[in-house]
């Protein structure tokens, strides 16, 4: 009987070998070869030119992850303390935007942040821009040199890119943390209180350590897509804030066709993700039960 059931695994193992393992092997081969498939290490050394892309990607992704954590943790914590009816509605409200494609939501931000977009129009209407100009003129050392602003530059800045990441990936931070906190054993909290802990101590010594697996899984789920995004940086960053994802996309479907370099960058990215995972698993004790829903 056992052998019969294990037979079900065979087709899937073949499938995995074909579409998961072999593609990665092909990518690995591409990353160490030239266009004529001669062995080379050039693709990796050439990456030295793109150090600034790497650092920018990591900086922005780390900032976005931190902001998500700062908003997401309190949010998840407060949600878990509400009644079950409220929780259900709140959960649904957080999931809901995910069923609209993330490009739609990002696109909406474009019309908000444009130089002539909703926010700038609002600022002009309430006189904020005039106010800034008046103050600027008064403070300027040489008033004749002062160039008045007509708008606040928001689109095309790295702030806009971070905003886009936070906006799109915030649910990925809230959900795992929430699902861990909501399952916390309440008798533990009561025990801590009975033993004389203040609320702050309960949070710091009991809730926080116990919710760490959720935090770790949230951090990974926000960091990985952030560091590899290409649509968000393109739409909100105006194409001048190139990130790793853009760099890879350029090599395959964009203006600079070089799949070998693209494969090499992808390999590096894969290694980074694996390292992240290993570190996370080391802290989070294996089980990935906190993954959504």
């Amino acid at each position: 009987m056992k052998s019969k059931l294990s037979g079900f695994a065979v087709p899937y193992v073949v499938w995995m070998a074909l579409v998961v393992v072999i593609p990665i092997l092909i990518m690995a081969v591409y990353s160490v070869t030239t266009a004529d498939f001669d062995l080379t290490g050039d693709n990796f050394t050439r990456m030295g030119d793109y150090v600034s892309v790497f650092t920018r990607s990591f900086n922005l992704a780390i900032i976005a992850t931190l902001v998500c954590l700062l908003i997401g943790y309190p949010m998840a914590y407060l949600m878990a303390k509400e009644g079950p009816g409220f929780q259900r509605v709140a959960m649904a409200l957080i999931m809901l935007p995910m069923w609209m494609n993330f490009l739609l939501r990002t696109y909406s931000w474009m019309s908000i942040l444009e130089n002539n977009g909703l926010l700038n129009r609002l600022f002009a209407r309430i006189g904020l821009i005039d106010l800034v100009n008046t103050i600027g003129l008064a403070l300027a050392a040489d008033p004749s040199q002062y160039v008045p602003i007509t708008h606040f530059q928001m689109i095309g800045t790295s702030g806009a890119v971070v905003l886009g990441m936070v906006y799109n990936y915030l649910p990925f931070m809230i959900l795992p943390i929430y699902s861990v906190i909501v399952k916390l054993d309440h008798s533990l909290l009561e025990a801590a209180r009975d033993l004389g802990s203040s609320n702050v101590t309960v949070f710091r010594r009991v809730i926080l350590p116990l919710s760490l697996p959720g935090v770790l899984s949230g951090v990974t789920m926000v960091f990985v897509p952030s560091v590899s995004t290409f649509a968000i940086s393109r739409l909100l960053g105006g194409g001048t804030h190139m990130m790793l994802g853009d760099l890879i996309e350029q090599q395959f479907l964009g203006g600079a066709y070089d799949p070998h370099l693209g494969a090499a960058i992808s390999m590096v990215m894969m290694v980074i993700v694996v390292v992240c995972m290993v570190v996370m698993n080391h802290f989070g004790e294996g089980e990935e039960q906190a993954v959504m829903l």
Partner: protein
Amino acid sequence: MKKQRRTGSRLLMGLVFTFLYAPILLLIIFSFNAGESNTVWHGFSLHWYRELFHNRIIMESVYTTLLVSVLSTIIATVIGTFAAIGLYSLRRRLRSSLLTVNNIPMMNADIVTGVSLCLFFAAFFQGWRAFARWFNGVQDVLELPLRLTLGFTTLLIAHLVFNIPYVILNVAPKLRQMDKNLVDAAQDLGCTWMQAFRKVILPEIKPGIVSGALIAFTMSIDDFVISYFTAGSATSTLAMTIYGMTKKRITPEINAISTLLFVTVLVLLLVNNVREARQERQDQRRTAPRPASAPVKSVRNHRSLKRFGALAAAAALLVGLVALGGSTRSQRVVNVCSWGEYIDTELIDIFEERTGIRVNYQTAESNEAMYSLLMSGGGDYDVITPSDYMIAQLIEEDMLAELNYDNIPNFAKIGEQFKNLPYDPENKYTVPYAWGTVGIIYDRNKLAEEPASWSVLYDDANAGDVLLINNSRDAYGIALKHLGYSVNTINEDEIRKAHQLVADAMSRGVFQGKVMDEVFQKMEGGNAAIATYYAGDYLSMVDNQADYVDLGFVVPEEGSNWFVDAMCVLKDTPHMSEAEEWINFMASTEASLRNMDYIWYASPNTEALEQYPTYYEELYEEPLDQEVYEIMAAPAEVLERCEMYVSLPPRIRTLYKDLWITLGI
């Protein structure tokens, strides 16, 4: 005190929800806008909803999205469930290492999965080509197609790649919780293993299967990156269509479709929530002692009825989707690739009506992007419309098919000055489509005087207000012209100097961004002061500019590039005769006139070019402004200042590519 904290926490949650929903709300509000703007309200209208149902591109991509999500969810759920059961009957060691492999597509960044699959498919297509060539050689009963491209099948496979792991991940814990002896007990009591599976295992793991299927569906709907790398050019999910549109003008139909999607999901969630709440209440009641066992049966009957209903609904949806797809597919097809805003789409309808050939009209962003798509097996094209220098490169690499000009009688109407140009000296491969010049587009309200020189592009006075054209050939070509060099120089120093000029301006923050077709919405909405783009597109921007914008166009004194875009056919296309019919139609005087009036690019058709002012006057009952005509069809004294691009040697192409990519970093 407690109450105060409660309001505080509610306030914070309210803020987060406002942040999450404000942009969505805006999308919804502006879907009812009478005007085309996403920022200025022109009054209430349902116009865009009506338009939506006539927009073939959006409707088809919605259909593709739903079909691929539903199909991949169903297949992934079945395969995933069986695979999970299979994996759980393996030895622990083997199982855990296989589960690690299973986790790879979930762990990896989407782009890495997408790229690896893209390379895998490209390698497979190459292998297939070799096989098909050999196979067609040894027998002639069956003719295998030589050229395979990315499409719906590869898209579906890609979705399965990331969906199955989610199903397994959700089913596995339920299997772990299940008592292993149950199955043995069932068999001891005389069940076959199939019965044991149906009656024992399945009910135990059902919650896992359901949540797995739900997550798989969510992932499919939300995916963009993996689809983008594996769907190719002809198949497009809604996300890909939107991404394509964000590059030029996003029509408010997108707002309308998002609103519809949002409302659908909202209703589904509400129904589900109400049902869950009711269930919970029922469960609470059920914990009270139940007098008789009779109602239990009725509940069960009711459940199975409901399950049947859900199954039937799913089946009906699937059949409907497939039928819808089937009805829109006819036998003769031609896949056309061109640029954004580069055809009067009514011409496609006219052509389809007259010939019965279905046109798959696709757009690429730039010559370089189209080339990349072709090389990675993603470009499912028959007819392409590249520019001069790219045509030369494609001919050089033996990628174009020779045309049979007997099938294209309208070629005779093409002006002699557009035939036998350097990119195709014997004119064996191409039929010119449109021509024009590159110049400066500027907003008169933001710039005091007409810029005479390209120098305004690199001037700190315009910091943050200049848009850099997002392709290396044009961006460096302009810089080369400004420095007084030829656009076709192969002197590396000159190219490096041009690059330095652009790079310096970029590091000083002169450029607001790198754009191709995004230039439309940027300039029309008054979001930038200066851009470089093509003359025809300037005229179509003037048509659409907001009332507080006043655009002008100039070909600077240093000179510029003049270009010809020509239609050509890719080698090994299975639709050669359809392709030639399309080319012949587009070269006709009638089509050229209509097209000129819509895209504002000059046609190489001599008759059309001469007749256009009269055509315009008849149509609009006012004479055509000579200035407009001269911007469209640049007069000789402007063309004298301009150079045509020629194909650069590979060494210089690599230099362009390497320099260009360092620009953004």
